[in-house]
């Protein structure tokens, strides 16, 4: 993989990432108040099985408290993605301002890689079902 200086639109995307993550953290203070009013998952109510995103609210609340263990317990996929989003959102603006190198091209989405991604998502869902989250 080769690296190069980021183009204008790539630096803008990095800054946007930072703004979005900052906005989430800023609005996060309202989540604990709102969370109690969120309905139970209708998919789980209807089928008895958790959906892929079941536990995401608990994950977000735990992450806002800084309790990574509880976040991983509630929904590991949401915990990893949420943490990556926020940590990346802190680093991305620095990357843009300092014009640090970015990959010349992202890895191609070959059929094999796509199959792995789908299998990973299904595995994450299966893990939620097996644990009865």
């Amino acid at each position, binding site marked *: 993989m080769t690296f190069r200086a980021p183009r*204008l*639109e*790539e630096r*803008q*995307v990095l800054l*946007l*990432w930072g*703004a*979005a993550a900052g*906005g*989430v953290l*800023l*609005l996060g203070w309202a989540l604990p*108040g*709102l969370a*109690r*009013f969120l*309905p139970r*998952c*209708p*998919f789980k109510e*209807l089928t008895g099985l958790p*959906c*892929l*995103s*079941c536990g995401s609210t608990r994950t977000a609340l735990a992450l806002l408290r800084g309790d990574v263990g509880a976040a991983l317990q509630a929904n590991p996929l949401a915990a990893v993605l949420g943490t990556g*989003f926020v940590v990346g959102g802190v680093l991305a603006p620095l990357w843009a301002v300092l014009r640090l190198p970015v990959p010349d091209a*992202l890895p191609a*989405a070959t*059929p094999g890689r*796509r199959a792995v*991604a*789908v299998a990973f*998502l299904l595995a994450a869902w299966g893990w939620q079902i097996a644990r009865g989250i």
Partner: protein
Amino acid sequence: MDQVFIPPPPPPPPPFVPAPPAVAPIPWEDPSRPPAPALIETVKLFVTDMAQAFRRMPVAGDIGRPLLYAVIVGSIGPIIAQVYSLFLPNPIYRILQERFAGQAGSALFHRSAAAGVFGIVFVPMAVVIGLFIGAGIVHVCLMMVGGANSGFVATLRVVCYASTGQLAQVVPLIGGLLAFVFVVILEMKGLEIAHRTTTGKAIAAVLIPVAVCCVCVVLFVVTLGAAIFGMLNR
């Protein structure tokens, strides 16, 4: 006798083929146009002929203009919807008030002017958050179905201009649902054109997150809709 080599005559010049006319960018992407008329013309173009609009949309380059467009156009509908909620009785809030009556925090569903103003102030921030996360999810889904041919910036541009659909929120009561459908249709058409992919892959990329991640939301909206109709018929 020596033979004299006579070179063949040069081939005739190829017939003149005029270059295809350069497609003019959408008005909002034309820096020579004044902003307000360009904004209105762009909105009209996306509403009346979304295919042509997305064909004229650049798929790369500065994303400042698309972002500004999305923040302006994507905020108008929700802000007007917030203003409605200050003056019009909202059946959804009435149901939530009844359901959570007496519980801690139920005051959230008693709309006050302060709550409305709070919502209006934070709409642009929510638009920015939604653009980035929404474009990211749609792009990953597009990669998974093998349709991402033009990079993330193209997807982000499509999502920015698809926020034109949020204007449907100016319709009272059902505006949110109309806006959701309109945005989904715009995103499908935009992805198909910007990524030069098939209609099926574009539809899949937009609907996979709706079906997988937001199945709860969809079912909740359907349940709530049924409850609202039940109340209205009572």
